[in-house]
């Protein structure tokens, strides 16, 4: 570091104050990082489970719709799909985890019972119904997984930023300030010694 600091007492006082402040901020940021990380770890295990369930429901739904396609014919399944006009809606709200704004997703009308599907008794068959049911389940799981995924992504971004800040303070900013403080202190001591020596010379004359 280029030492372009004035070795004066007031500068030293300022520097000491700054070091104290920086260390305080560093401690706080470190706590924030640990807190975020803790939050992240607890959410992650849920997320892993949700993802696994999601894949399982997808596999099930896929096999059911394949079955429906094979037994009822693609055209019938397609016409049933077009007939169903219930549109699932999701609502995205904002939630706050340690200063990180994360979405909170809730769904309405994700799953319809047989009567609500507006397919009718004659237009449908158990296979189509089962397929529609399992896709309804899948959508429910999806909404949950989507919320968690978005939350985790935001948390990750925040953790990364905080980590960078903590490291920058620990390995760059604080050492540099300390170095400057040591420099001023040594320089002041040196100046003091010079002064006493000068006085002694003066007295001897």
């Amino acid at each position, binding site marked *: 570091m280029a030492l372009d600091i004035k070795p004066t007492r007031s500068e030293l006082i300022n520097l000491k104050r700054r070091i104290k402040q920086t260390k305080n901020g560093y401690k706080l940021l470190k706590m924030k990082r640990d807190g975020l990380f803790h939050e992240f770890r607890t959410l992650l295990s849920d997320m892993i489970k949700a993802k696994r369930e999601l894949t399982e429901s997808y596999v099930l739904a896929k096999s059911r719709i394949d079955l429906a396609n094979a037994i009822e014919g693609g055209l019938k399944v397609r016409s049933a799909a077009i007939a169903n006009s219930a*549109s699932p809606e999701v609502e995205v709200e904002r939630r706050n985890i340690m200063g990180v704004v994360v979405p909170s997703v809730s769904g309405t009308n994700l799953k319809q019972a047989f009567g609500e599907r507006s397919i009718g008794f004659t237009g449908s068959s158990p296979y189509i119904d089962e397929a529609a049911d399992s896709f309804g389940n899948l959508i429910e799981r999806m909404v949950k997984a989507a919320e968690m995924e978005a939350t985790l992504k935001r948390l990750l971004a925040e953790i990364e930023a905080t980590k960078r800040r903590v490291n920058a303070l620990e390995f760059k900013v604080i050492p540099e300030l300390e170095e400057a403080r040591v420099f001023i202190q040594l320089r002041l001591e040196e100046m003091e010694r010079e002064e006493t020596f000068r006085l002694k010379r003066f007295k001897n004359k």
Partner: protein
Amino acid sequence: MEIAVVGSPEFTLGFQLAGISTLYNPEGEEETSKVFRSLLTTKGVGIVVVDSAVLSALPERLRDRLSESVTPTVLGIGTEEDTTLRETIRKAIGVDLWK
């Protein structure tokens, strides 16, 4: 907000059966990229469901943008679990915590 589904007609059919009406069946790489780009900027779409096979065939930069986006959240679904989130975790934290 709506749920949008992107994929082959076979993939979107099941979701249509469950009542979702915002479906995209893009063909070819160019069209797929275009659909995703427009979805990223569309308001009113909360979740985008994608066949993970389609997702993994996208150019890397677009895939990164999709995985970073929060509204809409892009969710890859397939018979194999998609690993985009796992990758993001590994990149951000430095350790693979996905166990």
